[in-house]
């Protein structure tokens, strides 16, 4: 079991999303760039040119490698591109939340939490 100190270190939100989602959330003041030489950002702007491997690498970095991320927000249509990773992710922290994007409204059928609900009730 992780100690309280481990949870206290998790103080940033990370975002994987399209440009407008990132812009809006950065306006709220969650953006953080670690000091040099790392210069690690806590967000990834995904566009049409971004590969699935890059998204997967960012998800891996935010969920496993970095120990200062408490919540990972990801656009639902981007989560669909790495759905196998999202569905097999079972850790309590960082918590992964799927959020809607400008062009893709929220679909409860695809939400990982509601999928868990359906699984629990045997559907």
């Amino acid at each position, binding site marked *: 079991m992780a100690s309280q100190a481990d949870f206290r270190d998790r103080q940033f939100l990370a975002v994987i999303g399209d440009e407008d989602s990132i812009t809006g959330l*950065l306006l*709220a003041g969650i953006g953080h*760039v670690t000091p040099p030489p790392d210069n690690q950002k806590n967000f990834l702007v995904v566009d049409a040119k971004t590969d699935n491997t890059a998204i997967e690498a960012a998800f891996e970095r935010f969920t496993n490698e970095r120990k200062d991320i408490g919540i990972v927000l990801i656009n639902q249509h981007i989560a669909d591109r790495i759905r196998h990773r999202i569905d097999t992710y079972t850790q309590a922290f960082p*918590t992964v939340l799927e959020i809607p994007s400008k062009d893709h409204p929220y679909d409860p059928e695809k939400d990982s939490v509601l999928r868990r609900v359906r699984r*629990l009730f045997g559907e």
Partner: protein
Amino acid sequence: MTTSTQPPPSQAPPQEPPQSSSQEPPQDIPQQKPQQPPSEIDTLLAHYLTLLHEYSTLRASLNTAQASMYHDIARANFCAGGGVRYYGRDYYDGRMKAGRRVRVSLEGEGQGGKGEGDHGVEIEDGEGAGKGEEKGEEKGSVQKGAAEAGEKVSAEGGNKDGEGQDTGEETTTTTPSQAPKPNPPKRKPNPLTWFGLLTPPPLRNAQSHAVHAVTDLIPRLATLSTEMASVELAVRRARKRRAKALKAGKNRVVAIMEGTKRVTE
């Protein structure tokens, strides 16, 4: 008035027996038996459904907040001016620092009733971002003014103390310098300033929607997600225990039946 409403004493006795008889005939004795207490699984599932309801409600609120945010960003892009073509990644600050941070707390500590997986997630305002930043600036200016006033007051107080004491002028001159100087408030830039000093109102509205989503909705959703996961785990464990108990009960019945057969033989 009161006498007319009250039934006469002679009519009261005949009315009572029918009432009592109407209550007795149904004989709800089997229905009045105390119901069995809900099983552990039922209790957990009821709690789970409550969490699910809250999750769905917050989801709807988050969708609304984000839709408003996207709408305002689109409006800001439509009326972009002052050299800005598009409010996007080209203007992000490469050295940005988070003004809002996550605080994870174990809610089950010392309460006993909570499980291991119960965590509370909150967003705490740092030195300020968005509206908080503006408030922080206001506070900062107020504190600065107060600090200046405080320095004056302390200087005056020092002089007064000096006058009151017989130690001389040395103490009065040293006290202002020894007094702890209030730390100047840290000013973290508002992310709006990345896009220029005069940002359009829609962008400010977008910021307020984003702040609402980040501070009020997302942390609670994260907390609910982890809490629901822990309840799911507890339900699965309870189901396993029940299945084991049923299996053990069946085996015991079979053993008893076999024992009785042997005795009869």
